[in-house]
């Protein structure tokens, strides 16, 4: 039984078909990667899955329930959380408070209760604080808890955003280029983080340009090119798929492991694709 069923999802912007009849499944307990050249429609697909864009056609079933037509907040409450290519942290809040905000998906003691500082409102606050602490420990960044987000290094910002997404209590986590802007060490730490997240029972879908990371962590890969799905399968198969190589890797030599141990790194030097993230 698949956790997420994407069926024939299509999204057009004027004359441009950004996502063209894409279908795939995500199975529980796995890490799935979504790759493709710049402008392939990855971020747009993410936006349509998470309620930030309404697809022009198709269906997105999460745990058997239709997500198309739901607002972003309702998608989060249904158990599907996301991060952004450009981290969307709340700069004036500390790392810990950022994560606490994620708990709001399921909290709602209301304004009045908070205004009067009723026991329910403070209990909710305590619960959020404890959960935020737990998640920061899970991700391994608890020492940053009191630092304002504006002062966090880029790598930590990504991780805080992941912790915040986890605070919404998702079964499925969608990460949009989590390794962008990370150095090699941070990239390796991210891989461990992703395993920890998966082992905590959260299924993961990532959009990522760093091929080394994608080949390392993912159980399955979907390849998009110009809005269409051109291949799907385990990393080894994708690496050997002539269609993928032709469309994307641009030649066989990129498959060989370089001295840095990061195969196909050339792809990650491409500029980030602009559309769809706003």
């Amino acid at each position: 039984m698949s956790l997420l069923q994407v069926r024939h999802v299509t999204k057009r912007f004027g004359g441009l078909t950004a996502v063209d009849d894409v279908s795939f499944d995500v199975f529980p307990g796995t890490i799935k990667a979504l790759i493709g050249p710049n402008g392939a429609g990855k971020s747009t697909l993410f936006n349509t899955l998470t309620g930030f864009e309404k697809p022009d056609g198709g269906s997105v079933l999460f745990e058997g329930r239709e997500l198309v037509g739901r607002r972003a907040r309702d998608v989060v409450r249904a158990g599907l959380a996301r991060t952004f290519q450009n981290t969307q942290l709340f700069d004036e809040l500390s790392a810990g408070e950022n994560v606490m905000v994620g708990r709001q998906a399921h909290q709602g003691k209301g304004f009045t209760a908070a205004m009067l500082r009723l026991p329910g409102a403070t209990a909710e606050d305590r619960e959020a604080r404890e959960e935020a602490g737990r998640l920061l420990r899970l991700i391994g960044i608890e020492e940053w808890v009191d630092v304002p987000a504006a002062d966090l290094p880029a790598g930590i910002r990504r991780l805080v955003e992941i912790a915040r997404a986890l605070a919404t209590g998702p079964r499925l986590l969608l990460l949009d280029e989590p390794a962008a802007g990370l150095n090699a060490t941070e990239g390796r730490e991210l891989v461990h983080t992703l395993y920890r997240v998966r082992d905590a029972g959260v299924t993961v879908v990532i959009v990522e340009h760093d091929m080394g990371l994608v080949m390392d962590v993912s159980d399955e890969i979907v390849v998009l090119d110009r809005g269409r799905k051109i291949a799907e399968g385990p990393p080894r198969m994708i690496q050997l798929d002539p269609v993928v190589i032709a469309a994307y890797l641009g030649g066989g030599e990129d498959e060989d492991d370089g001295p840095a141990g990061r195969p196909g790194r050339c792809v990650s030097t491409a500029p980030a694709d602009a559309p769809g993230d706003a």
Partner: protein
Amino acid sequence: MTSSRTWRYAAPFVIAVIVAILPLVVTDRFLLKVFTFAGVNALVVVGLSLLFGYAGQVSLGHAAFVGIGAYAAAYCTVQLHWPWILGFVAAGAVSALGGLVLAVPSLRLKGYYLAVATLGFGELMALSFKEAEPVTGGVDGFTGIPYPALGPFELRTASSLYWLVWGIVGVALLIAWNTSSLRPGRAMRALHGSELGAQASGVDVVGVKVRTFVMSAVIAGLAGALYAGVVGFVSPSVFTLSASVTFMAMAVIGGTGSLAGPLLAAVLLTLLQYFDALIPGIPRSTSQALQEYREDIYALAIILVVIFAPRGLGGLWRRRDRGGGEEVRQ
């Protein structure tokens, strides 16, 4: 470190006591009235700083809410002969409706566009106050508004009005502090930081915006009702764009993410208008110059704050705090 922390907890109480005993020390009635006006402005700014300083939503129409509250209270007490307290509640209710109206554009507009929409709302209301003669009394406004009364006790002395206003400021501050320090406050600040991020975190963006607008409007409306009671008359010349800009100036100079900063700014900028009353020996020409260039002084203060202390007065206070924390960490 410990002493600064103790001071941090003690400061609100010390300040509250000073504010509370002020009428026992200051016997000049005019001066007390000035401090009462400072309280009315402070009340508006407390509500505005929830909206602007926490939720990041600009309002250049807040004087309209003050006006709505003032006229509602005046109409209820003068025309309908309601007891003051009912007029006060009605002022809050009517301005809540106004806040709801203004919250609608805020769901779609951001930044400058929202500023212009709120400015339009303010101008529209200012015009309505003049034109809706049967309800508002037109350009003449309302006169003979009764003093605030709690049951049989009419508050007609300068000190009792002062206590009433500042008592309500205290309650509003407490409520605003509770709201801002718990979940709704984090939601507001999240909204300010990144609306996309807030949506992705499951924050009820629409709900937070609407509630913050309404809450801020209600507080401004109650301030208007108090103003009407303290002054005894309302006229449309008071609730203008210039007043809205002044409130916004107080909120900006006070700083975002803070209640104490805007409160202080509101008091200081109000006192600036009555400089001659505060310092008796001041030459007439100086006080006149201060009066004439009041708005220029505000503008200059805003520019200085934006350049040298982008987080306002409240930010200066917090920066010292944070600096201390970093020392400990090292």
